[in-house]
């Protein structure tokens, strides 16, 4: 329990290798964008982080449903671990998006539907982690966290479709859209390599963060059993 599993090390090494290839292609092989120029290279970081954040919160949703259904503490460990890693990637999305926005729109921030909903999503899951941290009783923390883990996910589809439902400064989706991707096929391939690398990095961080939860659960169990005996 105190050392990473072999699978964790393999996923971590794969993440490093795929990201090295993906970022190498993004910086040295893909030509600059015809409209935005060099600065469009931020896209490879931004979209990878978006994919990892969405996926992380989806995993939190599934694990929260499982906890509510089975009262399985292993599912709760996955839920809280995935939410924390999702918050990390959402922070990267907000920072990289803001920098990309400054270089193309001329502003660091605007109260556009997509940007605002991303900030709300970030706040919801920071609130989730705070709720978990401040709850005194572990079962109550897991129960309240699971409810918020399910309700919080409603922000994700709302966020994804915001660029279609409202007039926004943020460009509409250029990959997951009706009629297929509008992006150049080579750029799309490089985006997908970086998305795979970022998802593997998410997997590595998730496995390590779940290991921390398992150690904490075991410690709590030992302390409780000693308390009963003492």
């Amino acid at each position, binding site marked *: 329990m105190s050392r990473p599993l072999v699978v964790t090390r393999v996923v971590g090494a794969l993440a490093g290798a795929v990201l090295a290839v993906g970022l190498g292609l993004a910086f040295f092989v893909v030509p600059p964008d015809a409209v935005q120029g060099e600065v469009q290279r*931020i896209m490879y970081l931004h979209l990878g982080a978006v994919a990892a954040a969405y996926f992380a919160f989806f995993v939190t949703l599934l694990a929260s449903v499982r906890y509510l259904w089975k009262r399985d503490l292993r599912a709760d460990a996955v839920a809280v671990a995935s939410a924390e890693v999702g918050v990390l990637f959402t922070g990267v999305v907000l920072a990289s998006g803001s*920098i*990309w926005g400054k*270089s193309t729109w001329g502003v660091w921030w605007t109260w556009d539907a997509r940007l605002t909903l991303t900030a709300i999503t970030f706040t919801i899951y920071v609130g989730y982690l705070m709720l978990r941290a401040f709850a005194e009783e572990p079962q109550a923390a897991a129960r309240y966290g699971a409810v918020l883990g399910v309700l919080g996910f409603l922000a994700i589809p709302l966020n994804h479709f915001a660029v279609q439902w409202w007039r926004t400064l943020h460009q509409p989706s250029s990959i997951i859209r009706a009629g297929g991707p509008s992006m150049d096929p080579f750029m799309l391939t490089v985006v997908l390599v970086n998305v795979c690398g970022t998802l593997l990095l998410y997997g590595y*961080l998730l496995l*390590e963060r779940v290991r921390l939860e398992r*150690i904490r659960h075991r410690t709590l169990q030992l302390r409780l059993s000693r308390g009963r005996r003492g």
Partner: protein
Amino acid sequence: MDSWGFIGLAYGIAAIALTAYIVGLRGRLRDAGQTLTALERDGGRSAR
């Protein structure tokens, strides 16, 4: 700031955030592991 400045800022912030998280997570794992090991050792002693 030119295009490469913005690119460097975006990738730099992401690299710092991810590195800080990994270092912090390893620290939490080390501390939690030491606490657990100490508890298990004490439990083993009291059981004997």
